[in-house]
């Protein structure tokens, strides 16, 4: 198996396991920041030395630098989708709690008004 296949499979598995174990929003935000910083560093390097992507790709066993970029992009995209899905579910739960509280307070208030 060439290096890139191992790299991709391990990458996907690690991501999946980590996402399933329900990371905290701190971890999620920290990882997003690490990704962002890495992205900028790599982006600047590849702009200055365009051929480095090819060299790195060859090292991983990928034919072209553009292909390697596509693989990394795919992984980043899946990570982004999953993390926003988890964030959305978390947000939804908080909204439910909040709305429920409002509803119950309103009803209690109505009961007080009625008994006056």
């Amino acid at each position: 198996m060439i290096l890139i296949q191992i790299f991709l499979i391990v990458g996907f598995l690690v991501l999946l396991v980590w996402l399933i174990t329900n990371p905290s929003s701190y971890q999620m935000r920290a990882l997003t920041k690490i990704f962002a910083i890495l992205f900028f560093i790599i982006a600047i390097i590849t702009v200055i030395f365009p051929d480095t992507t090819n060299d790195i790709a060859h090292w991983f066993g990928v034919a072209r630098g553009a292909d390697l970029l596509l693989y990394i992009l795919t992984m980043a995209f899946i990570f982004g989708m999953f993390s926003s899905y988890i964030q959305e579910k978390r947000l939804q739960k908080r909204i439910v709690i909040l709305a429920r509280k409002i509803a119950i307070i309103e009803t209690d208030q109505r009961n007080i008004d009625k008994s006056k």
Partner: protein
Amino acid sequence: MVKVCVIVPCYNEEQVVKKVLQDIKAHFKEVICVDDGSSDNSGNEIIKSGATLIEHPINLGAGAAIQTGIDYALQDPDVKLFITIDADGQHNIKDAVAMVEYLQRHNLDIVFGSRFIGNVESIHPIKKMFLKIAALFSTTTTGVKLTDPHIGLRVFNRKFAENLKLSLPDFTHASEVIHRIKEGDYKYDEVPVTVTYSDYSKAKGQPMINAINITVDLLINRITKK
């Protein structure tokens, strides 16, 4: 007689909700109707019926509405039994009376209605087949043997209500109830009931494609929960 509280989740049922609630009130004094952010006139109809209105400021889903009703009812320590029933009039409240009696006689934690050991009027054959497959799926995955686990008509005691804590807001809540039974090893049974699908409730029923959402949401919830 013990204090019973009926919880009715309601979403856009202005045409029928008042009559449904009045029928319930004829048998049970405590009726809580949770208006789940309806955009129609359901809220006023609920107030007119004399039931207690709890109004979600936004639409949250049937499961969330039931949980809100339970939270509210639990504030009264005298309430010993809880009934959930749909607001569209597909259930008969007399069945709930029989279920309460059954629960007390057999000392159970929760009693479900079942349209499949009871009667079901003018159900679409595809929907019937679909519900039976869903029941089979539920029984094989949880081991909780019920012929109609997705019915809206249930009676349960305070212990079960306190531990229910529905976290899935939408129609997935029916499966969540079943999981709670399994987790807490509660005593359950089912009683034959009549479900009538009027043209009104048929037009309002959830689309069957929603089963895909329910299944996926349940799986994700079970995996991500610690």
